């Protein structure tokens, strides 16, 4: 069964970051995620959505429910058409920021979810997909 797309959001401002993390919280609550599980997912969402706004010039977030056997989860795809990331390995490192950030967003988001995938092309954009199982 193909995953059910729940929603797609446009994320351009810090207000949109708040909206999208609240939507993710809602969905995780509906699926019965534990409080810690919810909080980890939503924090990762906040980091990736902010990156899109700050570094990627804004983009879209797709939210879907995924199933693996009896397992249910939430998958989010963050896609922008910004400058892209020239060196993903470096960008993933804790403490590396192209600006004045703490440089924890990407590495931290990866630790907070079960599955993390990043594809980026310089001048074309970046797509990050995360999944957290219940």
């Amino acid at each position, binding site marked *: 069964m193909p995953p059910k797309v729940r929603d797609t959001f446009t994320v351009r*401002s*810090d207000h949109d970051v708040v909206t999208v993390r609240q939507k993710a919280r809602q969905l995780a609550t509906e699926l019965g995620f534990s409080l810690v599980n919810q909080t980890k997912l939503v924090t990762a969402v906040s980091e990736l959505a*902010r990156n899109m706004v700050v570094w990627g010039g804004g983009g879209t977030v797709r939210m879907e429910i995924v199933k693996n056997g009896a397992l249910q989860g939430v998958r989010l795809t963050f896609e922008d058409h910004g400058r892209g990331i020239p060196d993903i390995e470096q960008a993933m490192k804790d403490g590396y920021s192209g600006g004045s950030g703490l440089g924890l967003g990407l590495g931290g988001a990866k630790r907070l979810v079960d599955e993390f995938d990043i594809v980026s092309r310089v001048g074309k954009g970046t797509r990050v997909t995360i999944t957290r199982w219940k």
Partner: protein
Amino acid sequence: MERIPILKMGKFLIVSIQVDMHDELALALQEDLAEQIVKTRAKGVLIDISSLNLVDSFTARILGNMTAMARLLDAETLVVGMRPAVAMTLVELGVSLRGIRTAGNAEKGMALLEAIVAQQAKSNAPKST
């Protein structure tokens, strides 16, 4: 623009963050707090985050900035009421809250802040020989 209120209670300022802050709101709070510390000559700041169900790297950075800035203005800061799920998430995110003092709830925080400020007043007092 909406603002996070800052209340004065005796020598202390109290900031209770009740909403899911967008970044601009957090930055405005940081500015307002600096202004209020100077204006009221507060010796301590209590930041209550018990309503927050999420603290990401940006919010953590703002909390750290506020603590550091208050210290430069001669005020101690205490962050109170962090939810357990938030604390567990912060650890995994890799955010270090080094330099940020915390207490379980506002009441404990207030007592601790009183003690810290009293201690500092004592050690800063001119010594009589």
